[in-house]
């Protein structure tokens, strides 16, 4: 079977067909040739019909000729046995891997695309992706299989179908791909959405016309808030529309917050993109300082532990300057990328390093040095790239690498390319203080056996000498000593460097020039000879006796010299003629005559030109007078520059930076804008919440301020001191401190809830589907300082149940509590101090203030109290609510009020999810060929087995004929899971519906239960995946029991999150409804209308699940879930958050 003609036209591919055999041949010959190019030409010429003997498993038997080959493979592929097919596919894939042509098997392989065996299928995919482009027509045969796969209930199959479909590069299917991508982009599985993101650049490269539509999809996926999707979609963004920076605005904060949990490769892409984004959106943080100024760098060397000092120093230096206020979003980016410097992935570390280099205030850039130095321990390739970047950085910011000078010392075992880069860095780092150590180090390098490295070392010494005046003489002397080295290369390199150095101060060094003149007899390296000649010519007045003699010698050997040497001889002759024409006139004439007939036109031209210039004739005219000025003008000394100078206009860490040339697709790093664009574009509009957002901005600013500016003295530590001192005096100071208190407190919730809001729209659409992405892609939640907040929401309760006597006790409690939680706070340590001061501030007014507050202030006051009372976290209910002092006035009234309200609240223990049972689709009527199946979680106990979740299934027959024998077969379950099937439905008439109940024990996991739904004619693979909220049954607890149980489930078992209530969650009733709709829990009585408690037990193991939602006046709320099963807890938190923020 011949390859199709189209194929044989492409020479290299055809050649590669035999390359394997060629390789085998060459491998067997022990001394294999290195040059593959020669091997290649052989292969190309090699006849295709050469008999081939299968020595490897890939080619199996013996084939008589090319015509017959693969026949056995075809047979195997056509057989019925999966094992034979697999064997055949394995061989074919091995052929592909070796670069052998297997395209003639296409028809035989493509048939197996629908094969049931998953490995055969995978290998067929591999084959298809490789050859579909060449055999477009045949490839179309496989499309329908993928289209079917796209509808599969299993997310893995959907994803892999999309992956292959988008990889086969057949132009005809562009519309199909487009459709598939769009559909997958709104798939409920984040994994499928990720695959969709991956497919976008593929489609774009196949058909750039689709760009606009693809951008829409990208926009949609950018709004996705799972970490799984984030990296991939930013990748697509970078490939398709990197200039559409406007798409990022709304997602900026979310991306910053998700960053730490995104997989490492995604992190790199996101960080690089955000660097560019930040350059367009924020102001230059170093706007007030000249970049090369060295002051204020002391702070650089502080280690992480000394961060606080660092910050203080920084704040102090900045305070002197004109106020520059960093955009809080700018700060957010810097703060969230910093921990990634600790990543094990060198690419991530480099990405963060370049971000800091390009974006951070000068005083903060220093932190990256340590991480970069660490990377130097890695593989030599990593070292190579890192050193290139360090070299660029050291030019701009020498200070930050100075403490690590010794890490760049060179070992004799380093590869040469690494040695040379290290040398570059060392040279850049040299200054007056460390030059002596560096020079001592260089001295050992000069003795190295690696001659390229020695040459580089000598140049490095030269550069140090030119840059640092103090050591110039020392260096020069050292280099002169090298002139007597036995190695010619070393001598030549030294001569070149000495020449450059002498140019700086020639007067003092005529003895060196003399010495070099003597060397000319021995040195053969042209560059060195030329350098010496130039030196003598240039300074012939300092060596008046030697110069003519040198010219004499050179005239003798002129014809045998290299071109550059000849040119310098002519120069020398000309200069001597002008200064000392008496002795050298004839010599010059002689040299010029020799040059006139030289083979090189350059030399002939030069000779002619110089003759006209220096030898006065009647024709030469005016120029002649100026000859001396022309030749003996004072020449500025050369500046020895690093080759890495100005490389930083390329984004560091990029390929373009490494090559110092723009690579294809490189996005320029924009310059800082003159004035910052509107920062509000990054706000996510939610009308009813705009107030909070703006507030949050303000707060965030406040929190950050002490670290980069004190110019606006309205908040911060200075003020807190004030308020403390006169705290007794009245309401003014109290309210002031309140404000800042609430600021730091709810900042977190602001950010969080925003991302929740973003998700809202998207989630709306998906509401009716089952959700697979239950798990929140956050790190396993650390308990955070938010406990403060939850208690904040409880204050209304306190209003009603004012009890005086426990005040002091609770105060101390709360204090310890909050300081404890500070440690674990998700916020950076910066805020710790802030909240500490808050507590102090608050304590003062509480303890001292007479209860004189007017009524309108009481609201604020409740806010303030929130920090202090954490009674609900006390295990014993006896530590009853506490009275804040300011409520003393109205205590009695509120007391009574509270009591009465408590009673009313106690009454409705459970609110049934009224008509909120969601229906999920099990089988669409189209895929089910007319049979539509829906299911819901009925929330009734499943009577045959209490450990099972009852699933109510509704069958609808949409066909015109009866469906018979509906039953379940072959459940494929995770270990431990069980299914109690429903009784077989014998007949379902056309147009009829029937409902049955089955039980599934999910083992308290959200793993899907997979099984087959069978009718008398067909079988359908279906799966039921429970939302986490359905894995529990209501449990009835009293308030006391609740608190007791909650007390037992602290620590790791407690997860709390702050959230912002959605616009519709106006009252408690809605909250209860939302929570109970999300999870099958019952309401627990509670004495406050600011707090709702729920309890339930998981169905299979009976673990308690306790949920507390505490609302706050600001529209925020705190959600706490206590559950022994952390996974369930985490997922539940996420679901409830979602429900409540809608």
């Amino acid at each position, binding site marked *: 079977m011949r390859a199709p003609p189209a194929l044989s036209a492409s020479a290299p591919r055809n050649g590669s067909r035999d390359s394997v055999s060629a390789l085998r041949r060459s491998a067997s010959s022990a001394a*294999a040739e290195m040059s593959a190019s020669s091997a290649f030409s052989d292969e190309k010429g090699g006849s295709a019909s050469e008999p081939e003997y299968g020595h490897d498993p890939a080619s199996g038997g013996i084939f008589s000729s090319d015509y017959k080959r693969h026949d056995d493979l075809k047979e195997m592929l056509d057989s019925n046995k999966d094992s034979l097919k697999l064997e055949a596919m394995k061989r074919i894939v091995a052929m592909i891997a070796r670069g052998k042509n297997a395209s003639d098997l296409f028809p035989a392989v493509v048939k197996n695309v629908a094969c049931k065996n998953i490995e055969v299928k995978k290998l067929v995919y591999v084959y298809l992706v490789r050859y579909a482009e060449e055999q477009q027509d045949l490839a179309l045969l496989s499309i329908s299989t993928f289209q079917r796969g796209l509808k599969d209930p299993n997310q893995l199959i959907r994803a892999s179908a999309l992956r292959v479909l988008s990889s086969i590069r057949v132009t005809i299917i562009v519309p199909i791909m487009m459709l598939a991508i769009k559909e997958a982009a709104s798939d409920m599985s984040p994994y499928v959405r990720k695959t969709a993101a991956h497919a976008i650049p593929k489609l774009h490269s196949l058909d750039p016309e689709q760009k606009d539509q693809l951008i829409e999809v990208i926009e949609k996926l950018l709004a996705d808030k799972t970490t799984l999707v984030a990296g991939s979609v930013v990748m697509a963004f970078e490939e398709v529309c990197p200039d559409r920076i406007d798409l990022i605005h709304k997602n900026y904060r979310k991306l910053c917050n998700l960053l730490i949990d995104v997989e490492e490769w995604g992190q790199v892409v996101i960080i690089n993109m955000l660097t560019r984004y930040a350059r367009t959106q924020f102001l230059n943080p170093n706007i007030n300082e000249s970049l090369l100024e060295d002051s204020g760098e002391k702070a650089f060397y502080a280690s992480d532990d000394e961060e606080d000092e660092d910050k203080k120093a920084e704040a102090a230096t900045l305070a002197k300057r004109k106020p520059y206020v960093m955009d809080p979003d700018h700060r957010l980016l810097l703060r969230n990328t910093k921990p990634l410097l*600790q990543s*094990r992935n060198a690419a991530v570390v480099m990405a963060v390093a370049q971000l800091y280099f390009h974006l951070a205030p000068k005083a903060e850039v220093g932190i990256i040095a340590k991480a970069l130095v660490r990377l130097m321990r890695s593989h030599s390739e*990593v070292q190579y790239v*890192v050193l290139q970047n360090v070299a660029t950085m050291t030019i701009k910011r020498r200070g930050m690498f100075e403490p690590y000078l010794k890490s760049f010392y060179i070992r004799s075992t380093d590869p040469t390319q690494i040695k040379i880069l290290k040398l570059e860095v060392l040279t850049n780092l040299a200054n007056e203080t460390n030059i002596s150590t560096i020079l001592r180090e260089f001295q050992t390098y000069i003795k190295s*056996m690696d001659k390229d490295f020695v040459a580089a070392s000598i140049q490095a010494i030269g550069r140090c000498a030119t840059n640092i005046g103090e050591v110039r003489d020392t260096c020069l002397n050292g280099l002169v000593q090298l002139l007597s080295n036995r190695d010619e290369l070393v001598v030549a390199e030294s001569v070149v460097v000495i020449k450059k150095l002498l140019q700086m101060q020639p007067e003092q060094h005529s003895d060196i020039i003399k010495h070099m003149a003597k060397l000319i007899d021995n040195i053969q390296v042209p560059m060195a000879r030329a350098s010496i000649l130039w030196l003598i010519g240039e300074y012939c007045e300092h060596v008046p006796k030697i110069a003519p003699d040198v010219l004499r010698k050179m005239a003798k050997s002129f014809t045998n010299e290299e071109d550059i040497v000849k040119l310098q001889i002519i120069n020398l002759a000309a200069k001597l003629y002008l200064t000392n024409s008496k002795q050298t006139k004839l010599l010059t004439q002689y040299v010029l005559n020799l040059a006139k007939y030289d083979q090189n036109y350059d030399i002939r031209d030069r000779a002619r030109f110089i003759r006209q210039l220096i030898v006065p004739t009647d024709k030469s005219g005016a120029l002649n007078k100026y000859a001396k000025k022309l030749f003996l003008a004072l020449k500025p000394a050369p500046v020895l520059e690093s080759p890495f100078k100005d490389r930083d206009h390329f984004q560091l860490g990029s390929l373009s930076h490494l090559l110092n040339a723009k690579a294809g697709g490189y996005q320029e790093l924009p310059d800082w804008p003159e004035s910052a664009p509107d920062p509000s574009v990054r706000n996510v509009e939610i009308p009813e919440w705009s107030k909070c957002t703006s507030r949050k901005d303000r707060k965030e600013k406040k929190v950050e301020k002490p670290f980069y500016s004190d110019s606006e003295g309205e908040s911060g530590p200075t003020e807190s001191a004030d308020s403390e001192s006169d705290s007794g005096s009245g309401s003014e100071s109290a309210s002031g401190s309140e404000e800042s208190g609430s600021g730091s407190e709810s900042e977190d919730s602001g950010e969080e809830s925003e991302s929740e809001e973003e998700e809202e729209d998207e989630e709306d659409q998906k509401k009716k589907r089952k959700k697979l992405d239950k798990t929140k892609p956050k790190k396993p939640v650390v308990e955070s300082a938010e406990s403060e907040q939850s208690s904040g929401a409880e204050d209304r309760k306190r209003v009603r149940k004012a009890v005086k006597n426990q005040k002091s006790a609770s105060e101390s409690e709360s204090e310890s509590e909050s300081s404890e939680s500070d440690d674990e706070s998700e916020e950076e340590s910066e805020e710790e101090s802030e909240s500490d001061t808050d507590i102090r501030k608050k304590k003062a007014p509480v303890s001292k203030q007479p209860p004189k507050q007017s009524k309108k202030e009481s609201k604020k006051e409740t806010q303030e109290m929130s920090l202090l009372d954490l009674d609900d976290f006390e295990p014993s209910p006896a530590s009853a609510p506490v009275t804040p002092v300011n409520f003393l006035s109205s205590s009695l009234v509120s007391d009574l009020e509270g009591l009465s309200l408590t009673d009313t609240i106690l009454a409705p223990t459970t609110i049934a999810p009224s008509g909120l049972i969601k229906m999920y689709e099990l089988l669409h009527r189209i895929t089910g060929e007319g049979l539509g199946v829906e299911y819901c979680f009925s929330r009734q106990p499943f009577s045959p087995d209490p450990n099972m979740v009852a699933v109510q299934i509704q069958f609808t027959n949409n066909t015109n004929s009866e469906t018979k024998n509906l039953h379940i077969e072959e459940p494929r379950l995770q270990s431990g899971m069980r299914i109690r099937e429903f009784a077989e439905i014998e007949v379902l008439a056309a147009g009829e519906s029937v409902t049955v109940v089955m039980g599934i024990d999910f083992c308290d996991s959200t793993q899907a239960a997979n099984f087959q739904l069978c009718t008398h004619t067909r079988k359908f693979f279906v799966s039921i995946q429970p939302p986490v909220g359905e894995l529990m049954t209501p449990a009835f607890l009293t308030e006391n029991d609740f608190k007791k149980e909650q007390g037992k489930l602290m620590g*790791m078992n407690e997860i709390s999150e702050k959230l912002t209530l959605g616009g519709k969650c106006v009252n408690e009733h809605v909250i209860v409804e939302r929570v109970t709709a999300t999870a099958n829990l019952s309401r627990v009585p509670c004495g406050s209308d600011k707090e709702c408690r729920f309890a339930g037990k998981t169905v299979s193991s009976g673990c308690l699940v306790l949920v507390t939602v505490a609302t706050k006046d600001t529209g925020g709320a705190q959600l706490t879930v206590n559950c022994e099963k952390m996974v369930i807890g985490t997922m539940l938190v996420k679901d409830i958050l979602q429900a409540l923020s809608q």
Partner: protein
Amino acid sequence: MIHSLFLINNAGDLFLEKHWKSVISRSVCDYFFEAREKAVEPDNVPPVIRTPHHYLINIYREKIFFVSVIQTEVPPLFVIEFLHRVAETFQDYFGECSETTIKDNMVIVYELLEEMLDNGFPLATESNILKELIRPPTILRTMVNTITGSSNVGETLPTGQLSTIPWRRAGVKYTNNEAYFDVVEEIDAILDKSGTTVFAEIQGVIDACVKLSGMPDLTLSFMNPRLLDDVSFHPCVRYKRWESERVISFIPPDGNFQLMSYHISAQNLVAIPVYVKQNINFFETGSSGRLDITVGPKQTMGKTVECLVVTVHMPKVVLSANLNATQGTYNYDPVTKILVWDIGKLNPQKLPNLKGSLSLQSGAPKPEENPSLNIDLKIQQLAISGLKVNRLDMYGEKYKPFKGVKYVTKAGKFQVRT
């Protein structure tokens, strides 16, 4: 991103190619071969090679060049790091990453490469996920596969890929629950002729082998965490806890992994466990030289120094060595010009000494530089920095695991200049 990958052995045979986008002719590797030839030594091949239409980014590992083809801008470290990850995955799967094992497992290699990149962008690089997708070959499985015709491809959905902790799969079960930690420290040092330390620092890693059922949540704390100057973590470690409390809190991957690496900088005083007295001379006349090396203990904290090896890269003119070792054996390879003296255990009572003459190529000038010595050593049960693990706590699971910590100190890039 990454367009294609070619694997090339040291002899210049291209034995595997994989394309993630359209096919790029393997002739693009000619540019690589050119650079390879120019570089002489394999580790001097520039990692990034520019060709008219592509960029080749390559790494050299286990005598194999991994050459990837790039068409557009991409951070070079991204590619380099990924290629190393590929090599590590092979090592993980086949025990070693060599040409033979790759050729023997061509299909698995291909399947792995297919899963690791999609359209050139990394997809699944966590070994736990990969192992769920494609099971690593074992002798037993190979046998079963040949008989039953079943495959190495996993049938279940890799749960890890979808969870918040992609590095761990669900439902891990062991009968013996154990967690072992190896604290391995390497001393990087340069000593000068007189034996004074030019530069010294300690690089440490903590390798873990955790075989625990379920979803354990571990917390590892140190006696002296402040010692650690610069750390990098496996993605499973919670940065925040480290920053605030200096404890390492993590849900471990299943099996072997590197938990963290750390660095104790030159600022701290680094104990140098051995000293070397050396005297290497080349004579102007007679084309010969003398060599005399003695190694002795310096700061060993009372432990024994083991596996002591001294390696000397001799100048090209040294033809042979006629030496006498009081302990251990020496070997001089006249082709690579490397002298290896394998001492073994260091006996403080009787210091090992290597003494004798070197014969040089006659007529050649005497070498100017004395070769530097590279020292290799190992000290068991000691972390030279003094780092100590305090305790390991487990949350989230009920059983009691067996825990163990081991300390080892080795010489890293330990060089004595002469």
